[in-house]
């Protein structure tokens, strides 16, 4: 181990630091620059009832067997603000920017979709 460390040159070390820094910065940057899902799709009873833009703030009520479910879109996020179903799991899930909120008793599925769905599946064959 010692001989390895001694035989690395200054350029080696600088290159390593530069590459690691660039890669780590790149990971954060690419996560940040990633376009988020752009649409909120609200399905009732398996049918798409509303398609709303995620970047437009609004509050709306979706009727269901347990009364109105209040969905709030704000600042690029979406949540169930108020529900009257027994467990209120949808309300507890809080804000989401991707994925879905499912309210089973009310037959409501709120999903954030868009052009970048299932993105990381892009690569499936890179080998050395």
């Amino acid at each position, binding site marked *: 181990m010692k*001989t*390895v460390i001694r*035989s*690395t*040159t200054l*350029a*080696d070390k600088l*290159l*390593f630091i530069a*590459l*690691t820094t*660039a*890669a*780590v*910065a*790149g*990971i954060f*940057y*690419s*996560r940040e*620059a*990633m*376009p988020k899902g752009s649409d909120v799709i609200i399905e009732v009873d398996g049918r798409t009832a509303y398609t709303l833009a995620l970047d437009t703030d609004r509050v709306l009520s979706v009727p269901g067997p347990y009364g109105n479910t209040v969905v709030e879109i704000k600042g690029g996020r979406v949540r169930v603000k108020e529900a009257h179903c027994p467990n209120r799991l949808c309300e507890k899930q809080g804000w989401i920017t991707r994925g879905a909120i499912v309210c089973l008793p009310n037959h409501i599925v709120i999903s954030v979709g868009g052009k*970048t769905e299932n*993105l*990381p599946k*892009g*690569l*499936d*064959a*890179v*080998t*050395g």
Partner: protein
Amino acid sequence: MQLQDKHRIAVLSAYALALHGFESLLPTPIPWLRLGLANIITLVALVLYGFRTAMTVTLIRVVLASIFLGTFLGPSFMLSFSGGVASTAAMGLAYAAFEGLFGPVGLSLIGALFHNIAQLTLAYFLFIQRIEAVIFIAPVIILIGTLTGVANGAVSGLLIKKILQKDGENIQNDKAD
């Protein structure tokens, strides 16, 4: 090319093939994670015997390994081929252009970087064609490549030192011709 050169290339290619084959048997948590162990042999060949030997060994290794693994001319062969050629060429250039500036670890890092760049570029044009997917995955791949590159470079450095100690006077570097 003398008989001795052929013998040397054959032995190096055999080592590289064995490492390449071994590596493809290892289960990896992420499908595109590869250790690049065969690059150790490429690097040793480059430093001890020169660029021509290194490139020959790489070409033999990539083609034969793909035939043995059943991926010849398939997508993973193309990625492996482009990565191997690009990394060997980049290491050879860096070694020749900046003599003494980079040690084995630095050369290995350069090789790993260009291996990844070539593969990502090819993968983009041939298979993915979605720039955001490439941008998303590139830093992760380059980070992993940097870490495995250091490990491979360190092993190469030790190997080069050992071979020089043992057999230093018999080594002919084809850099001269």
